[in-house]
């Protein structure tokens, strides 16, 4: 195999140049279209950084303040750009600091290639300085990982890494390169991107019979319901999906990672699914007759209690990953394949329809939700500020054009519920893993991935303090990120659960914060803190108009709860409005 590959990479079969493993790596990154690397140097990756010194013009390396920040930035970059995020870290602690980000990228299917330095090959297994068994530590949280101990392996392994990270269901790949391989010179014959690995089938074969069966079910359905996830975005099938929704006339709801695949105000977009999703989509999941799940994986936060989830419905599941079919919800028709191909095939076979009465049911539930929850959240007449009204005002000013990056907790649920998104790749959040500290570094990466768009990081006072050091990355790189801290002086989501389920026993959720505006100022970032309703619009406007990064802290009411809510262990139709 190897000799074959080399011949392919070098058709003339003669021209080779002697380069180091490090140079071969950087050449590979350039050929793969990498333009930004988030990283942090250290002993075992020094040869690569030495080579990088001569590649400053071609590869923009962003020095982060912590490797976790580096990998979250890589994730943010991948999520807004659709490209593979590239991250560098050194061995030992540098590599172990990537683990949270790898787990996050794994569960949210984010394409990454992480390069870690490793001690010299002859020191492996000797407990050498900064040696950890990175391959085994990261095996459960990577789509693929590989240790390179010989420089000649670099071109082929890096090409496989990019191919695996971006193809099929994307995911993180980690390549561990021992220091000797980084230094070693070898006869380099060019770089050939990989497009086939015999043991790896990124796209399952599409079977027409399932498409036909699915179309028949949809055509017969009286109360069909579409639920979509990030698969639509990862498959770059937004237009195909919109055409499908519009032809079928079927009400459609999203998981938080799917948000934005079709615009928030699309007439058939009926809102968000799950624990803090909208009222109608949750209740009516248990009333629909055909449930069409597209590029989503029936996470427990979406399904609530599984044995009471959509039991009355026939389920059509479109997914590129065969292991997702029947994993949580039993499928009637499995449509395996790339949704970029399966959705149009399905659209062709379905009848043009309108489900006016059925759609009205969703709208009736909306009315109840607006009355009981949304109105008070978005338009409170008096009292302290709510998170919802801040997001609402932000929508008014950005007109739904901004990229919204969120951290984890109450503000995340509020932002996902209320943010207006006109475009795809506009909602960057840690969905599956729920990683606090994600937003600030992810927003940095998101801006590199979408340099022409406004990036607003909505963060809680708790999560912000987990990766607050990345303000240094903002300062040094000069990147323009708008930081909106919704400060309720609590670890709000845990507090909410303690209030509702632990009889108000507030156990270690009362969190003190420094003066965030002063902290930002110390990093040369302008900032402002507000707590009055009349300041919201002007302060947000000031943040958005500011040239460069800006930190706006909004002091919101301390003990507000996010509703609706499907309590844990309850069915989606038992969703509570208060």
């Amino acid at each position: 195999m190897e000799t074959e590959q080399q011949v392919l990479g070098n058709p003339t079969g003669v021209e080779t140049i002697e380069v180091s493993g490090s140079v071969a790596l950087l050449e590979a990154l350039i050929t793969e279209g990498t333009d930004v690397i988030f990283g942090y140097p250290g002993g075992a990756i020094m040869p690569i950084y030495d080579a990088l010194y001569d590649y400053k013009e071609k590869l923009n390396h962003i020095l982060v303040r912590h490797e976790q920040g580096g990998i979250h930035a890589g994730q943010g970059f991948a999520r807004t750009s659709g490209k593979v995020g590239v991250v560098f870290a050194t061995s030992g602690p540098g590599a172990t600091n990537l683990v949270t980000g790898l787990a996050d990228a794994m569960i949210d299917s984010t394409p990454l290639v992480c390069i870690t330095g490793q001690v010299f090959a002859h020191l492996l297994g000797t407990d050498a300085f900064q040696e950890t068994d990175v391959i085994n530590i990261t095996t459960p949280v990577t789509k693929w990982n590989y240790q390179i101990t010989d420089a000649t392996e670099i071109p082929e392994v890096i090409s496989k890494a990019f191919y695996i990270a971006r193809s099929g269901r994307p995911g993180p790949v980690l390549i561990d390169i021992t220091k000797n391989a980084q230094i070693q010179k070898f006869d380099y014959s060019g770089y050939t991107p990989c497009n086939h690995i015999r043991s790896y089938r990124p796209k399952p074969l599409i079977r027409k019979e399932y498409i036909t069966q699915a179309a028949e079910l949809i055509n017969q359905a009286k109360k069909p319901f579409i639920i979509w996830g990030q698969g639509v975005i990862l498959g770059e099938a937004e237009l195909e999906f919109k055409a499908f929704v519009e032809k079928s006339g079927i009400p459609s709801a999203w998981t938080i990672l799917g948000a934005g695949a079709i615009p928030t105000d699309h007439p058939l977009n009926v809102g968000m699914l799950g624990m803090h999703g909208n009222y109608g989509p949750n209740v009516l999941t248990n009333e629909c007759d055909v449930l069409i799940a597209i590029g989503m994986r029936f996470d427990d936060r979406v399904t609530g209690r599984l044995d009471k989830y959509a039991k009355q419905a026939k389920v059509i599941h479109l997914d590129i990953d065969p292991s997702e079919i029947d994993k949580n919800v039993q499928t009637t028709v499995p449509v395996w394949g790339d949704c970029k191909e399966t959705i149009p095939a399905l659209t062709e076979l379905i009848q043009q329809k309108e489900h006016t009465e059925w759609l009205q049911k969703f709208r009736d539930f909306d009315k109840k939700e607006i009355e009981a929850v949304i109105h008070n959240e978005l338009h409170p007449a008096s009292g302290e500020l709510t998170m919802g009204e801040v997001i609402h005002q932000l929508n008014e000013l950005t007109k739904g054009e901004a990229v919204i990056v969120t951290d984890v907790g109450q503000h995340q649920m509020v932002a996902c519920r209320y943010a207006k998104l006109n475009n795809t790749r506009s909602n960057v959040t840690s969905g599956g893993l729920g990683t606090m500290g994600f937003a600030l570094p992810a927003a940095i990466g998101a801006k590199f991935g979408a340099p022409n768009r406004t990036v607003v990081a909505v963060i809680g006072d708790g999560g912000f303090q987990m990766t607050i050091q990345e303000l240094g990355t903002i300062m040094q790189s000069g990147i323009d990120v708008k930081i909106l801290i919704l400060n309720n002086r609590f670890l709000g989501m845990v507090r909410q659960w303690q209030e509702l389920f632990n009889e108000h026993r507030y156990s270690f959720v009362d969190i003190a914060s420094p003066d965030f505006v002063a902290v930002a100022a110390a990093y040369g970032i302008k900032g402002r803190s507000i707590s009055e309703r009349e300041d919201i619009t002007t302060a947000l406007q000031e943040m958005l108009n500011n040239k460069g990064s800006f930190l706006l802290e909004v002091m919101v009411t301390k003990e507000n709860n996010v509703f609706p809510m499907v309590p844990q262990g309850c069915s989606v139709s038992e969703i509570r409005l208060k």
Partner: protein
Amino acid sequence: MSNQNDTEKPSGKQEYNITVYTENQIGLLNRIAIIFTRRKINIHSLNTSPSEIESIHRFNIVVQETEDVVRKLSRQIEKQVEVLKVYFNTNEDVIWQELALYKVPTDIIAEKASVERLLRENGARAVVIRKDYTVFETTGHREETDALIKILQPFGLIEFVRSARVAIIKHSDGFNRKLREFEKAEPGEEVAENEYLNNGQKIFTM
């Protein structure tokens, strides 16, 4: 490995033989093993060895689980980049064997036992005969290899070892043809993918 009593079978659970064809890759054993350990599932028996095709390895994994769990496990295994194919089968669907070696003191066994009859009745053979000890070998199902332990125990059984299970799938056409399809960038329809609905009762394929 398990020391769980095989007769304790919680409802719905039975022995499944999972056959995995893989590339020969360092770290892959761990990648496959953690799919079980993450779900706190015990691997009862594990054999890995080169297959009939050069560079392709074959795993035989035995677990005691429900069909639903085994199907999910198999899909997770097949999802690994370096895994080519996974099949799972009940004991009825496979021909399986385990190999066992028994070391006994030569003097006692020669003096007290009718060696010839003992070997014949148990389908065993002598691998090594030395002055101080003799090694017998037998292959068979668990009960058969267990039976010989009981027989040899009174004759001062010194040491015993049993291999993992190896199993041949009754319905299988082998792997050569499939591998040729895998090597193509665009595999043909014959590569059994996405057809579990039609074929679910027979051999699990994806």
